[in-house]
């Protein structure tokens, strides 16, 4: 598709739908998936990002991934831009800082590359280290081990035309500005890219605009979402879960434009413009339903913010 737009918007899919059967994924039926696609298409999104565990349901619903993509395109959604790699982080089989598990992680990633053809995938998004409490103390050697793994994976995924992009959750083993600096210094810029998740970095105390300016030539994608909290209490190392169970913060993530949001999206757009970024921008709001919110409304509010605020800065 030809376009004169510098930016195109993708939606990272965490939706769940309230149905008479309870809350369900939109990958449970063609009808639900159809309605999901129409909703995000109507407000200007042109691609989705999803998890690699949705490859199976897509194949089952449509017969093949090529047919799934054709169905999406009929509704205005061009491709599955990114697959988020759902690794079961565990030192017994897959922990990036444990070299003995690298073959297993690599082989699993290669399996996903082989089995995801047909959707138009461009990015393979990974959390580049396990949960912080599983990795700590975070040593240089552990960071080097992670870098070795993702250099190897990133080189392989490029053979499939896919960039490996690292996505640093605030509770991930690689989270601080210094850890990020070392990791990107020790990874090969040809093979390992950054997926800038604005809220996650802010929660971790890292300025996402500063990070973007430093690493913009390594940036393969974005997850644009907001937060109202910086983790000042060490929730990132809280067991068993920092993201949905932290007693300090019932809801970490909010849609762009939410009152009280800490991410400076206009400044980020200005930085992207200054750096000449062109391509896809992903929007995400995981856990939008925590506390009574809902995914469609959050998505439409993000779309409003894109249309009425961000596009005026850079489009």
């Amino acid at each position, binding site marked *: 598709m030809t376009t004169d737009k510098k930016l195109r918007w993708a939606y990272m899919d965490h939706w769940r739908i309230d149905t008479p059967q309870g809350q369900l994924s939109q990958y449970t039926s063609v009808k639900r998936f159809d309605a999901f696609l129409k909703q995000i298409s*109507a407000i200007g999104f042109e691609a989705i990002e999803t998890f690699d565990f949705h490859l199976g349901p897509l194949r089952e619903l449509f017969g093949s991934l090529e047919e799934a993509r054709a169905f999406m395109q009929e509704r205005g959604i061009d491709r599955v831009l990114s697959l988020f790699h759902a690794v079961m982080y565990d030192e017994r089989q897959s922990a990036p800082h444990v070299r003995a598990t690298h073959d297993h992680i690599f082989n699993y990633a290669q399996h996903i590359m082989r089995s995801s053809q047909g959707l138009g995938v461009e990015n393979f998004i990974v959390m580049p280290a396990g949960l912080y409490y599983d990795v700590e103390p975070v040593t240089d050697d552990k960071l080097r081990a992670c870098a070795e793994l993702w250099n190897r994976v990133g080189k392989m995924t490029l053979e499939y035309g896919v960039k490996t992009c690292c996505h640093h959750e605030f509770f991930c083993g690689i989270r601080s500005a210094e850890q990020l600096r070392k990791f990107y210094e020790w990874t090969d810029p040809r093979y390992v890219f950054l997926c800038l998740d604005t809220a996650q970095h802010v929660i971790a105390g890292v300025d996402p605009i500063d990070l973007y300016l430093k690493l913009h030539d390594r940036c393969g994608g974005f997850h644009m979402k907001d937060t109202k909290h910086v983790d000042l209490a060490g929730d990132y190392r809280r067991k068993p879960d920092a993201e949905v169970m932290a007693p300090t913060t019932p809801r970490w993530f909010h849609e762009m434009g939410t009152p009280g949001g800490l991410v400076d999206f206009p400044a980020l757009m200005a930085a992207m413009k200054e750096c000449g970024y062109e391509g896809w921008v992903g929007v995400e709001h995981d856990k939008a339903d925590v506390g009574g919110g809902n995914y469609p409304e959050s998505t439409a509010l993000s779309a*409003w913010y894109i249309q009425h605020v961000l596009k005026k800065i850079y489009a």
Partner: protein
Amino acid sequence: MNDKGMNQRIKWAYGVNQWKAGFTSFARLEEIERALKVTAACGFDAVELNAGSGRWDPIGRPENVAINYGSAAHFRLKLAELGIHRVASTFFDPTVMSFEELHFGLMSTVPADRARIVAQARIHAAMLAELGGEVLVVRPFPSFWKEGGLDDERMAAAAACWNEVGAMAASLGLKTALHVDALSALRTVGEFERLLQLCDSDHVGLAIDTAELTIAGHDVVALYRRFHQRVVHFHFKDALAVDTLGEYRLANAERAMIAAGGEREVPRWFGEMGTGLVDFPALLAAMRELGYAGWVVVESDKGPEPIASGMMLNAWYRQNVLEPVPAHAQR
């Protein structure tokens, strides 16, 4: 005029009525702001307001708008900031109780109620005019179960009422549109004919609500073709069932038929465009063919949560199905 030109004569808006499910909802200003942002994000930059009652309805009455936004002029600027550049219309149903006007429902068919209906309509019409709106949409008759079948006398009383409202609204630069719904005492095409004969064609026209009239058993495309010269407004929503059992006659039909679904327990009467019985492409083709120039207010009119979903699905249908419909499309 070519198809594109025709399309430009149709102006799209979205009704706000789906957001207020009860006394606690759509009452905080931030809820209204979020709702209007969702509306704008869906590509609708105009809205139809709903005449409301009570302090918990911040945009339903001029005094509430004044309390919450300072003035209608300020409210208009706030709407523009949210991406809503027009208020198309206001819907007013005199049979709904009003705390402010101290009544439990007024009847257009009762001559004694006429002055109070006109006075109440004037309050909403004045705010609508100040907001730059164009159409005062009114419920012309009470429900059948309250009113019974219409006779000449009550038909004439209602027509006189709406002629007076029409003249009042016209003095403010507005049109008045009669919006007949699924439960209305007015049922037949013949009654439509009679009503329109009695109403002043300069000021009072017809609103076609696709779902309400389909539920009531009408073919909305045929109805539009028959009365197109008097049609000044549309509400677009789909109908998922027809009242084949005549349950509009049930006592408390708003609850017994619409809310509870009647004997068949119809789970939902109204649906998003393209999911039910209304042939929207045929209707739009007829509207373009006959040169309709006015507002089309898309509605969700309640429905399952989340409300944003229904609106987003209607936005997709408008963009992908309705806007490409050429004037010559046939059913």
